C-alpha cells in the first residue's frame, strides 16, 4: 500500500522537463574541484555554471544503487533504504532547546544533544539517530565533528549527519572509521548518512559540493536535501517546485556518480511552504508534505531510496498543533512509503528540539508504522469458521483465537497516548500528555545507557582529540567531563 499523488505519466514528464533544464540551464557549483570532474565527464562548463547533457544524467542514474544498507555501531544491519519501509530519525540540526518547563527556549549545548540521543536510544520506533543539535558551547571549527562524537559515544543507532565544511567531512570520516575499525570497514557497513543540501534555486555552495565529491569517494551514503521554497526560491506552484527539486537532486546525483560510479545516494528533501505573511519556512504545512510525498514518488520511479523531513511541527511549544502536525506528517510519510523520515522531536521550522516532544512523537511514529502492515486475508485471519462456530451472541473475549492473535494484531501505545477510562486516569494523577511525556522521558533516561566502551571508545576519543589538534582548538569542558574516572 503506497499513497500516490502524481498522475501516472507524472514522473516521466517531470523527468523530461528536468533533463531539459539540466542541459540548457544547469546549476551553479561553487567548488572548482567538483566542476572539474564534471567537465571531465562531459558536462558543459562555463565558469561555475555546469550544464549536464542528458546522457550524463541517464548514465549517473543507471550507476546509482537502488538500496542503501545502514548498520549500527556494533555492525548489525538496521535498515535497507530502498526496500519497503520507513525509518524515523530525530530531525537535524536544530539550534535551540526547549527546556522541560515547556516554555523556556535557549541555545542548545553538547549536554542537551547527549541527553536527547540517550533518550532516543531507548525509543524503538525511532530506528536511527541524528546529529540533531548544534552545540553552542563547542568551538565552531569542530561543531560538526563534535556532534558526531557525541552521537557515536552515546548510542549505537546509525546516524544521520553532515559536515559544515569541506575539511569537516574528513574529521567526520575519521571518527566513523575509528568506530568501524577502518575506512574500508565503514564503506562496507555504512553507519552514517551524510546530508548534502543545495542552496535553492539551482546552486550548490562550496561545502555541499565538496561533501558530495569526497563523500562519494569515501563510500558514505549521501542524502540530497533539496529545499524548494515556493514563491521565494522556486516557482510558487507545487509542480514547479517539485521540478526544481528534481533538477537539484539530479545534479547532486550526477556529481556523486561522476566522482565515484555506484556511489550510494538517497533521494531526499526538505520541502517547505514559504509563508507569505511571516517569511517563515513552514515544514509541517500540508502542501509541504504533499511535495515531500510527490518527490518521493520521483525517487521511487528512479529506483532510489527516499527521504524527507516530516513528522515535525512548526508550533513553538508542545501543544495541540505540535501533536496534530507531527501525526499528520508521520502517517502520510509512512503511507507514502518514504524510507527515511527526519523530524521527530522538532518544533519551530526545525529550529528547536524537545525531549518531551520526542517521547510523544515516538508513540505517534509507532502508531503510524502500524499502518504499513495492511490487512492479511488468509483463513486464520478472516476467521469465518470461528464466526460460524460462535454464531450470533458469541463471546470472542474467551476464545483461543483472540488469545493467539491479540498481541500481534494491535500496537498498544502509552503512556503518552492515553486509553485509560476517566476514573482510572483521575486516580492515577490526571496527567495530560505533556506531563506524561515528561515523566516518561525521565524514567527512560534513568535506564543504563548503551555508551560506547572499551578499545573502540578509546579509538573514538583519540580521533576526536586529533580533530581538536588539527583544528587548533581546546577540547570543550563537555569532552573533558567525559574523561573523568567517576563517569
Amino acid at each position, binding site marked *: 500500500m503506497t499513497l500516490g499523488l502524481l498522475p501516472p505519466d507524472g514522473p516521466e514528464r517531470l523527468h523530461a522537463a528536468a533533463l531539459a533544464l539540466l542541459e540548457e540551464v544547469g546549476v*551553479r557549483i*561553487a567548488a572548482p574541484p567538483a566542476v572539474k570532474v564534471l567537465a571531465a565527464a562531459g558536462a558543459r562548463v562555463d565558469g561555475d555554471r555546469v550544464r549536464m547533457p542528458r546522457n550524463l544524467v541517464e548514465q549517473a542514474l543507471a550507476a546509482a544503487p537502488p538500496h542503501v544498507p545502514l548498520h549500527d555501531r556494533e555492525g548489525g544491519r538496521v535498515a535497507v533504504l530502498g526496500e519497503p519501509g520507513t525509518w524515523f530519525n530525530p530531525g537535524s540540526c536544530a*539550534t535551540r532547546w526547549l527546556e522541560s518547563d515547556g516554555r523556556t527556549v535557549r*541555545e542548545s549545548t553538547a549536554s542537551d544533544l547527549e541527553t536527547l540521543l540517550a533518550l532516543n536510544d531507548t525509543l524503538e520506533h525511532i530506528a536511527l539517530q541524528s546529529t540533531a543539535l*548544534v552545540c*553552542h558551547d563547542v568551538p*565552531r571549527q569542530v*561543531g560538526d565533528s563534535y556532534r558526531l562524537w557525541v552521537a557515536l559515544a552515546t548510542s549505537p543507532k546509525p546516524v544521520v549527519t553532515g559536515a*559544515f*565544511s569541506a575539511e569537516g567531512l574528513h574529521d567526520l570520516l575519521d571518527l566513523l572509521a575509528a568506530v568501524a575499525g577502518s575506512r574500508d570497514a565503514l564503506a562496507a557497513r555504512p553507519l552514517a548518512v551524510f546530508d548534502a543540501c543545495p*542552496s535553492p534555486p539551482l*546552486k550548490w*555552495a*562550496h*561545502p555541499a559540493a565538496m561533501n558530495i565529491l569526497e563523500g562519494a569517494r569515501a563510500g558514505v551514503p549521501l542524502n540530497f536535501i533539496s529545499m524548494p*521554497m515556493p*514563491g*521565494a*526560491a522556486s516557482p*510558487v506552484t507545487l509542480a514547479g517546485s517539485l521540478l526544481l527539486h528534481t533538477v537539484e537532486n539530479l545534479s547532486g546525483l550526477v556529481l556523486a556518480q561522476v566522482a565515484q560510479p555506484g556511489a550510494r545516494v538517497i533521494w531526499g528533501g526538505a520541502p517547505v511552504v*514559504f509563508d*507569505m*505573511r*511571516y*517569511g*517563515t519556512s513552514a515544514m509541517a504545512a500540508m502542501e509541504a508534505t504533499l511535495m515531500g510525498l510527490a518527490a518521493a514518488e520521483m525517487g521511487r520511479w528512479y529506483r532510489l531510496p527516499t527521504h524527507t523531513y516530516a513528522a515535525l511541527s512548526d508550533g513553538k511549544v508542545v501543544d495541540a498543533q505540535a501533536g496534530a502536525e507531527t501525526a499528520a506528517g508521520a502517517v502520510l510519510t509512512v503511507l507514502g512509503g518514504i524510507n527515511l523520515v527526519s523530524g521527530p522531536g522538532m518544533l519551530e521550522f526545525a529550529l528547536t528540539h524537545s525531549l518531551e516532544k520526542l517521547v510523544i512523537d515516538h508513540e505517534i511514529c509507532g502508531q503510524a508504522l502500524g499502518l504499513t502492515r495492511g490487512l492479511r486475508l488468509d483463513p486464520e485471519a478472516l476467521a469465518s469458521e470461528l464466526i460460524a462456530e460462535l454464531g450470533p451472541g458469541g463471546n470472542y473475549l474467551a476464545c483461543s483465537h483472540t488469545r493467539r492473535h491479540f498481541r500481534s494484531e494491535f500496537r498498544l501505545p502509552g503512556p503518552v497516548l492515553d486509553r485509560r477510562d476517566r476514573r482510572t486516569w483521575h486516580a492515577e494523577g490526571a496527567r495530560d500528555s505533556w506531563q506524561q511525556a515528561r515523566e516518561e522521558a525521565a524514567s527512560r533516561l534513568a535506564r543504563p545507557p548503551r555508551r560506547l566502551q572499551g578499545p573502540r571508545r578509546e579509538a573514538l576519543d583519540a580521533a576526536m582529540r586529533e580533530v581538536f589538534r588539527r583544528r587548533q582548538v581546546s577540547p570543550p569542558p563537555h569532552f573533558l567531563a567525559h574523561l573523568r574516572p567517576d563517569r
Partner: protein
Amino acid sequence: MDRGSLLEEMYRVVYEGEVHRAAAVAERALEAGLDPLECLDLGFMKALQQVGVEFGTGEKFLPELVAAAEAVQRALQVLEPRLAALRSRRQALGRVVLGTVEGDIHEIGKRIVGSLLGAAGFEVVDLGVDVPAGTFLERARELQADILGLSALLTTTMERQREVIARVRQAGLPVRVMVGGAPVTASWAEEIGADGYAEDATAAVELARRLVGVERCG
C-alpha cells in the same frame, strides 16, 4: 503629462509592483523636470510605505512588498545620480547598506529585510550576495551609511561577519553593524562586536530604528 499624473504613475508602479516599468517612469519624471527628491517622497517611497502599512495589517503579502521595494530600487538607480549632483539627501530614517557575506550565496532573508526596511522609511542599498569585506567597507564609506547589515546562512561563512566588523572598526567608520542569518545568535553578535542582531525581518526593522535612535512607534 503633468506633475500630478506623473506622481500618480510613480505611486502606481511601486504599489502594483511593476518592477520593469519603474526606471522608465523615473526617467520620464526627470525629463519633465520634477525634483528627484519629490519623486521619492511623494511618489515612489510614499507608495512603498503604504504597501508596508498594508503588509502590517495583513492586506498585502511578501511577494507584493518585495516587488514594491524592488521597484523603488530600480527607480533609485535612475534618481541617485541626480540627487548626488544636487547634493541633496533624502529625509530617510537612515541609510542601510546590506549584503550577504563573502562565500555565501543566500539571498532571500536579506532581500526580505531590505524590503521591510525600505517600507519602514529607510534608504536601502543592497550589495547582493558573496560580498567581500572590502566592498562592504568601501560602499559603507562612500554612501555614508548609518547601518551596515551583514547576512550569513552558513556556519562556515559566519566568520566573515567578524572580519567585516573588525575592518569597519579598524577603519573607524561611524556605522552601526547589524547581523542576521539562520545560524546567527545574539551571543554570536556580541562575540564579534556587532551593534545588534535580529532574529527575523520584523525584528530587524525594530533594531534598525533603535540603532538610528528612533523610538519604536505603535
